[in-house]
């Protein structure tokens, strides 16, 4: 019977190597642009000294969308994410070319205060990093330094509101003055999300926010991302294909610094247009 099966098959494919496909790639496939962008990047190149980490990336990030950046380690997705709120400014050898716009304004203009930019474009990191302060003070820190409140009642409201939005209020309302570092990993990450939304950002950048968490804490973060989308624009870097598929509306695939393909998440995970995307999400990179 197997012979009959083999007879039916015709194994004559001549496949190109990943390097060949990558070298031939010149233009992002799919829909890198959208109608209502909150942020736009135009022909962005990023260099670390003489090494180019990002090549000519043009990508729109739509209002109130969750866009997932995926790709193998070293593909530049975190570097790209960090450009979006000028976190790379702290790296001396990092040079950025091209335009990065927030509501049409170039965020790399000399007149742009990076601290104010980071209040508008917040960030949540892979490892929860609460301040060594109380839960209350972790949340209150940002509003205080940005002068968002004039009295204690307003600050109390912001703390409660942020913790409610981060889905943490019920778990911590009776111990607001205990150390934030005493919470579990998942709670600490939600505390960091609450801290970032306390300053009312417009965009939240998340760099593998659930990679250090167990499946239950991960599910809570994913639910939270879905809830936050109503009020914020979210850019998430993740190594979990399933997570990208679950939480995002659009997905962008990076490979060795090039933006290979951008598309509707449903389409990317069922019918990607580029061979490299297909190979990556199906686990064919050996």
């Amino acid at each position, binding site marked *: *019977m197997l012979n009959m*099966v083999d007879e*039916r*098959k015709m194994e004559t*494919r001549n*496949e190109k190597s990943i390097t060949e496909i990558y070298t031939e790639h010149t233009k992002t496939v799919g829909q890198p642009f959208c109608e209502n962008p909150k942020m736009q990047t135009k022909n962005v190149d990023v260099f670390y000294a003489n090494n180019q980490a990002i090549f000519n990336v043009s990508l729109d990030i739509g209002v109130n969308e969750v866009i997932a950046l995926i790709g193998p380690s070293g593909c530049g997705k975190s570097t790209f994410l960090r450009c979006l709120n000028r976190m790379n400014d702290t790296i001396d050898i990092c040079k950025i070319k091209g335009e990065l716009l927030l509501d049409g304004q170039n965020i790399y203009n000399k007149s742009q205060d990076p601290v104010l930019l980071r209040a508008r474009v917040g960030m949540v990191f892979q490892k929860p990093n609460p301040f060594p302060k109380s839960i209350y003070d972790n949340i209150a820190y940002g509003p205080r330094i940005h002068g968002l409140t004039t009295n204690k009642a307003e600050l109390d409201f912001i703390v409660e509101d942020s913790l409610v939005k981060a889905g943490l209020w019920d778990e911590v309302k009776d111990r607001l003055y205990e150390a934030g570092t005493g919470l579990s990993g998942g709670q600490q990450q939600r505390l960091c999300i609450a801290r970032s939304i306390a300053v009312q950002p417009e965009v939240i950048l998340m760099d593998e926010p659930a990679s250090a968490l167990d499946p239950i804490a991960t599910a809570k973060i994913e639910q939270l991302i879905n809830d936050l989308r109503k009020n914020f624009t979210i850019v998430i870097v993740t190594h979990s*294909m399933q997570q990208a598929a679950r939480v995002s509306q659009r997905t962008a695939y990076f490979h060795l610094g090039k933006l290979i393909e951008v598309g509707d998440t449903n389409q990317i995970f069922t019918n990607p247009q580029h061979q490299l995307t*297909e190979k990556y999400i*199906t686990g064919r990179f*050996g």
Partner: protein
Amino acid sequence: MSYLDFNKHTSNEYNEELEDIRNLLLNMGGMVEKQLQKAMQALLQGNIKLSKKVVKKDLGINAMEVKIDEECTQIIAKRQPAASDLRLIIAVIKSITDLERIGDEAAKIAKCSQYLISKKYECDYFSEIEKLAAVVESNLSLSLNALARLDADEALKVAINDMTVDTEFERVNKNLINYMSTNHNDLDKIVRLSWAAKSLEKIGDHTTNICEYIIYLVKGKDIRHMDLNVIKEEYFS
């Protein structure tokens, strides 16, 4: 999309699992194809023994469907397949349903032949059904080749060729109805012949479904319920 290759995963075990269900699917296809050939042979040659074999063997095809379904479920649970892998699993799950039904139709043809053989019935219309069966068998065989070779162009050709099956069936059916009006004593036998023809027509439809899943697998486009000429224009030009 010539880059559909299910043997290039980082995990060799995953390669083997996907290859395994592809082989099982093609084995099941081969079994069903033989069932149809034997059912027709039994009908045309009046071979009661062979017709009984066909009916019995249908149980094996049913078991095969359950086995492949189970393997697909395991792969979904363990691997969470995406893109072409996901489309392969979906195409397999759907194709085996159609193959199982083709098996059922072959068994129905065998049962019709058992009745006709028991009545020692003969008439000119057997040869008409033979012609219809030739087109149906050829389409099924070509669709299974296309499935093995992931050949969307061939699948489309076979799907379009189902019109020939429908036309041939209409002709046979019309002739049988006319024949009934003049042979009232043989109505029970002619009805059995008509059922066999209807089973062949249904096998043609199931074959078309399989072709649609091949196109979905290879092109990533769900073309069900679409005009085949529009599909040709949009996805094959």
